[in-house]
């Protein structure tokens, strides 16, 4: 960000007298605003798409009143959430009750900072990218627990505790399933991971096809991440039929809206991480995007990245409306008895593969056979 500020100061004569840190700070705020607008738009439109997909799968029409084909439903929902009365239960812990939604929303939104949208389109290319995402999403757990506890409601408490247990358990397989991508790239930075999947192999340069273990790893990640973000086969924390709505049952108005937005934000983060770590990120097949002029290269790579990420989001919605919900004990057993050991074995397999074949994947070896 500071390098950008320096080049901006050099390029625009008007800024010559302004101290560097002011320019940097203003740039940071501007970038954050752009990402916030993107995140909120995605979350709004995502809620509409989710309901449309649900309608399709359940053989009904879905929202169709507001605007053509119900396209403006999400705006109506947004206005409704903002205008609704904000109720705080009399016996709730007022401060914590108000604080909890912010924890959840900030934890979900902060992860957008390291999403590699394009060749040069990343808010902060941190050298610990993946760990940063895992660190900020741990705020979500705290927020959910607080929401459940501060509501002073038995359902909310149970929902909050279920959510926390679930997120903490599934954090381990999620992290372990992402490490193969880190091993292949030799870096935790998401940009480096995406770059390591480029080159002239096209889609076979993706980590997904690198070797059998990474292929398996992708599905492990997808399953575990679906659970970590409380998507439906694993949406125990808010199971409507038993817990009413879980940790957010006492929330109304925009405070509920923040939980709702964070849920869709998490969905995008999962899709974006899967895209960046296994599906080649913004790489255009058989083509180096970096050789194009800055603006076209970025636009093209942004388009490629968003197409893949949105496709992943659609698959998540599809799974969400197709599978029935698990039981709590089944959920915990699945994480600790199956996913965690499998991801460990998988990690060992990828490490051995990289050691034995000197970091080469199957497509790379086949390509080198033909010269």
């Amino acid at each position, binding site marked *: 960000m500071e390098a950008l500020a320096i080049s901006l100061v050099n390029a625009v004569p008007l800024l010559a007298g302004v101290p560097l840190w002011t320019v940097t700070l203003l740039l940071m705020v501007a970038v954050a605003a752009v990402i916030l607008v993107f995140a909120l738009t995605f979350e709004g439109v995502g809620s509409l798409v989710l309901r449309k997909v649900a309608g399709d799968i359940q053989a009904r029409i879905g929202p169709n009143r507001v605007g053509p084909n119900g396209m403006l439903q999400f705006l109506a929902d947004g206005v409704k959430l903002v205008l609704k009365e904000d109720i705080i239960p009399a016996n709730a812990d007022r401060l914590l009750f108000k604080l909890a939604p912010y924890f959840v929303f900030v934890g979900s939104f902060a992860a957008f900072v390291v999403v590699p949208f394009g060749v040069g389109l990343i808010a902060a290319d*941190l050298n*610990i990218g993946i760990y940063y995402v895992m660190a900020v*999403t741990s705020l979500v757990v705290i927020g959910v627990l607080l929401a459940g506890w501060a509501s002073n409601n038995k359902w909310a408490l149970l929902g909050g505790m279920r959510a926390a247990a679930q997120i903490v358990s599934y954090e381990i397989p999620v992290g372990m399933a992402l490490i193969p991508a880190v091993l292949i790239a030799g870096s935790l930075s998401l940009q480096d991971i995406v770059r390591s999947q480029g080159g002239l192999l096209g889609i076979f340069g993706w980590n997904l096809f690198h070797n059998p273990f990474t292929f398996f790893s992708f599905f492990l990640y997808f399953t575990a991440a679906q659970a970590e973000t409380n998507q439906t086969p694993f949406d125990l924390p808010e199971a409507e039929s038993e817990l009413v709505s879980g940790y957010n049952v006492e929330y109304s108005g925009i405070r509920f809206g923040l939980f709702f937005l964070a849920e869709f934000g998490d969905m995008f983060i999962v899709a974006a991480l899967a895209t960046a770590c296994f599906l080649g990120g913004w790489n255009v097949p058989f083509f180096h995007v970096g050789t194009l002029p800055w603006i076209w290269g970025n636009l093209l790579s942004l388009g490629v990245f968003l197409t893949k990420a949105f496709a992943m989001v659609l698959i998540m919605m599809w799974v969400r409306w197709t599978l029935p919900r698990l039981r709590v004990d089944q959920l915990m057993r699945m994480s600790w008895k199956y996913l965690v050991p499998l991801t460990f074995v998988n990690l060992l397999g990828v490490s051995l593969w990289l050691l034995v074949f000197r970091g080469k994947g199957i497509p790379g070896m086949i390509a080198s056979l033909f010269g």
Partner: protein
Amino acid sequence: METVLFILFGAIAVCGAIMVVTRKHPMASALYLILTLFAVAALFVLRQAHFLAAIQVIIYAGAVVVLFIFVIMLINVPEDRLPVERATTMRVLGVLAAGFFILESAVLARRFWMPIGPVAEVGTVEAVGRALFTDYLLAFEITSVLLLAAVIGAIALAKRKI
């Protein structure tokens, strides 16, 4: 700039730590502990130790404190039934121990004073990994055995019949 940030986050960490000890309700203490942990993570970032900062947040804020909050929620003692601490000898001892600790850290700080500005990379992934698997390998492996023993112990205590 760096000094200002250091003082800011240092102050947050120290104030948070004091609040952890003085708050009456355990939930408030746990929350202040999270604040302190985040401030310490920020201090790590200021020393370019990004990896340590991330691990600090993932392990302590994301797992250890979550476990604390979990237990506090499970027990859920009403406000008026929280135990009142009266042990004055313990308090005197505590203040004495704190005094010793501050003295000791002052002495240590004078010895290992870190120069201002960019320092040798000590907290990056490579540096931590290399240190763990070369110089501190024995300690690292023994720690893993200790953790395994703790896990088995917990299961043995919780489940008499396996």
